[in-house]
């Protein structure tokens, strides 16, 4: 049976890219989360500046510090992936290069996130 949906109905809500406001929403959601998380992170780093390995290790191992560090990593890596995606879409015009960079962007964000979270967990669980 032929598709009876009108073009207006098809595009309404989700737009021509079919993802709607999801990118915008997630970008703003992580931006909002980043504000307190980055303030926490900057204070943490300043408080640990010049400290010995033992002091840094102990601080990163304390539960609330580790929990908020992991939240910070999740929020910033998601946010930066969304942002870099827009930069690539804006400036890279060749189709193969664009797709390659979009893939590299996702891999980069996931590698940074996984390695950082693993490090925090290893420190926390006594590694």
């Amino acid at each position, binding site marked *: 049976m032929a598709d009876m949906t009108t073009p207006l109905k098809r595009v309404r809500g989700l737009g021509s890219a079919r993802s709607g406001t999801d990118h915008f929403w997630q970008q703003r959601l992580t931006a909002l989360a980043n504000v307190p998380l980055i303030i926490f992170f900057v204070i943490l780093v300043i408080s640990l500046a010049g400290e010995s*390995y033992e002091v*840094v290790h102990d601080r990163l191992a304390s539960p609330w510090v580790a929990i908020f560090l992991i939240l910070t990593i999740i929020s*910033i*890596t998601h946010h*930066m992936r969304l942002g870099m995606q827009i930069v690539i879409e804006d400036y890279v015009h060749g189709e193969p290069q664009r797709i390659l960079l979009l893939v590299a962007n996702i891999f*980069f964000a996931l590698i*940074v996130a996984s390695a950082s979270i693993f*490090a925090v967990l290893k420190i926390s669980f006594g590694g």
Partner: protein
Amino acid sequence: MSQVDAKANRPLSPHLTIYRPIITMVMSIVHRITGCALFFGTLLVMWWLVAAASGPDAFATANGFFGSWIGIIILFGYTWALMHHMLGGLRHFVWDSIHGFDEKPREMLAWATLIGSVSLTILLWIVGLIVI
């Protein structure tokens, strides 16, 4: 005239380089540049955390870099990029609330982003140096 020629001769819109830089435009570009810098800056965060998880030797190597002149310059720039991008983001939240679009408020917000980011960076480093 063929289609191909029509496309090739199509007039281009004036590009960024012909405009006189204005503060809102410059802050918009800087927001994007700091965002890209912070993207790659997460490698340093990852290095610091993985080094701390790897042991005293790896941590000493990372700490040695962050404590060197080049490391301090990078971290200072990192702090500014972070503050600038954060204040630029807050500016976007103001715009999201449908405020601050008029000439005066938008220029005021742009200057506040720049002055605020520089001030916060210097303040954070003074606090940091006192703590050390």
